[in-house]
């Protein structure tokens, strides 16, 4: 398989499927003139008209609860509902507002749940309308635009507590996320990447790394915003892998957009902080609300759960140890490709030998073999050279093609 094959398959996954489209219909658009009046934009928008049950009364919302919501929270809930219905597939949703289509926005991208062995990884894109007033003020003081954009002024700056999601408590994150939901000058997109998809991708014939999964999720979300008419001024991205390469990749994919890929972007740029909060809240609720198809057979122990999903969490450790089917391995909440998981399978489940593993057992010769003088002892080493010429290119072996000189 050539690398372009891999690219193609990746793209085909990025095409919104029916479920994504149904959510797109429900995208809430706020009338810029009157933020209270809500506009119906799609066929499925009926429930958007319903009054928000909790918001006005208490200001407190149970994000993991079953209540129905409107606005950003409605989109968030819909994403989780779809994901719960089929946790083996990725889900992508967008929450848009009119202002973000008319006025220039600074956009941030961040992820949550990259390290844990349990549950999905969530990618979030977040757009916020630029604070023109503040930009003009700074310009008057003689600051250059590039200097101003080192700390992009967005209307969001007025939201005080906002910071890198890891430095906030769960409660604060949820509060902030709820506030986002009602703002008419922000937009966001969420991509929930299923743990089975994460494992599947790293166990493909042509290995597809987690970095590529991340990059492609970011690209899909940017494309999603562009397709939906969000006015993107500049995109800030927390780096995954080498910074320069990632920046180049994004610039090549979107020649019309400006990017800033940076380390610790989630604490330096407000839109990235906001994206990180959205991603983290979604990841936490998705993990907490995980539904097992055969829940009665899952051993949750005294903790009645599976913990944070981090390999060091004792609750997660126990969950992993107690829920191994000797043949089929872990339930689908587990990222089988994580070494924590695969090491446990090696130890506690029956041994599996893959056909293709056997094929690939012929090791390639050391590269140093081709350099330098042959030592005297190697005189008869010529015999070992055909060893490597026997090793076929994967292109042939995957297609079952053999070289023949005669038919019989």
């Amino acid at each position, binding site marked *: 398989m050539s690398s372009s094959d891999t690219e193609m398959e990746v793209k*085909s996954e990025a095409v919104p*499927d029916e479920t994504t489209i149904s959510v797109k219909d429900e995208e809430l658009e706020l009338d810029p003139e009157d933020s209270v009046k809500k506009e119906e934009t799609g066929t499925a928008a009926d429930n958007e008209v319903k009054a928000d049950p909790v918001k006005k009364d208490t200001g407190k919302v149970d994000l993991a609860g079953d209540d129905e919501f409107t606005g950003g929270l409605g989109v968030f809930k819909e994403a989780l509902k779809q994901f719960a219905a089929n946790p*083996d597939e990725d889900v992508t949703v967008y929450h848009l507002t009119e202002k973000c289509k008319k006025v220039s926005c600074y956009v941030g991208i961040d992820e949550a749940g990259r390290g844990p062995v349990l549950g999905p990884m969530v990618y979030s894109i977040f757009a916020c309308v630029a604070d023109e007033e503040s930009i003009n003020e700074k310009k008057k003081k003689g600051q250059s635009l590039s200097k101003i954009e080192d700390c992009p002024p967005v209307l969001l700056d007025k939201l005080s507590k906002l910071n890198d999601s890891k430095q906030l408590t769960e409660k604060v994150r949820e509060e902030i996320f709820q506030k986002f939901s009602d703002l008419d000058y922000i937009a966001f997109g969420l991509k929930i990447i299923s743990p*089975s998809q994460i*494992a*599947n*991708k*790293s*166990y*493909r*014939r042509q290995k597809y790394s987690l970095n590529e999964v991340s990059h492609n999720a970011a690209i899909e979300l940017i494309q999603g915003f562009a397709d939906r008419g969000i006015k993107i001024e500049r995109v800030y991205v927390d780096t995954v892998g080498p910074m320069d390469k990632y920046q180049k990749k994004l610039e090549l994919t979107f020649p019309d957009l400006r990017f800033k890929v940076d380390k610790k972007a989630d604490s330096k740029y407000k839109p990235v902080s906001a994206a990180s909060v959205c991603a983290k809240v979604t990841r936490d609720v998705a993990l907490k609300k995980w539904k097992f*198809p*055969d829940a009665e057979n899952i051993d949750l122990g005294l903790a009645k759960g599976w913990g944070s999903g981090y390999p060091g969490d004792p609750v997660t450790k126990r969950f992993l140890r107690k829920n191994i*089917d*000797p*043949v*089929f*391995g*872990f339930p689908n909440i587990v*990222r*089988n*490709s994580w070494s924590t*998981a*695969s090491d446990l*399978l090696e130890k506690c489940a*029956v*041994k*599996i*030998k*893959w*056909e*293709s593993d056997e094929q690939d057992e012929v090791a390639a010769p050391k590269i140093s073999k081709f350099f330098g003088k042959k030592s005297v002892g190697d005189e008869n080493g010529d015999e070992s050279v055909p060893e490597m010429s026997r090793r076929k290119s994967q292109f042939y072996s*995957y*297609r*079952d093609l053999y070289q023949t000189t005669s038919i019989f």
Partner: protein
Amino acid sequence: MSQRKYVDNTESSSSEENGSSKPVSKEVSVHHVPFKVEYEGQANVEAKFSSNSVPAPSDSKVLINQFRGRPLQGQKFDLPESYEGLVALDLKGSSQLADETSKDTEISLVNRFETMTYWNWDRVPSGMDKHVKLLDWMELSKILHEPAED
């Protein structure tokens, strides 16, 4: 090779409700997988594997599944006419069913099947797969070995 004695357990006790004496055969789903499981015995195939198969979005004839995180792509196929799939249990050295069967019985037939699903690891099923080639060969070999009409 001499014929080995066998006992046929594939027919469940005839359904008494409708009074018919026609045996009901126990159809099972049989999977051919691209890996060896170093284990013999019962496994929860239905709940942990068969029920997770979904048709591929691009081609509904292709099935998608996974095993321990590895992506599998498969296809269901019917056995050729005049062939029958049998699941057999080797009784030699096993105490199972010993009391019901005579001592010299060596094989117990436990299930019959007419369709099978084969799985490739991350490769779209195609005419190049061994299973498809086997079906081709079965047809060819029949023609080759049939007594020539004269």
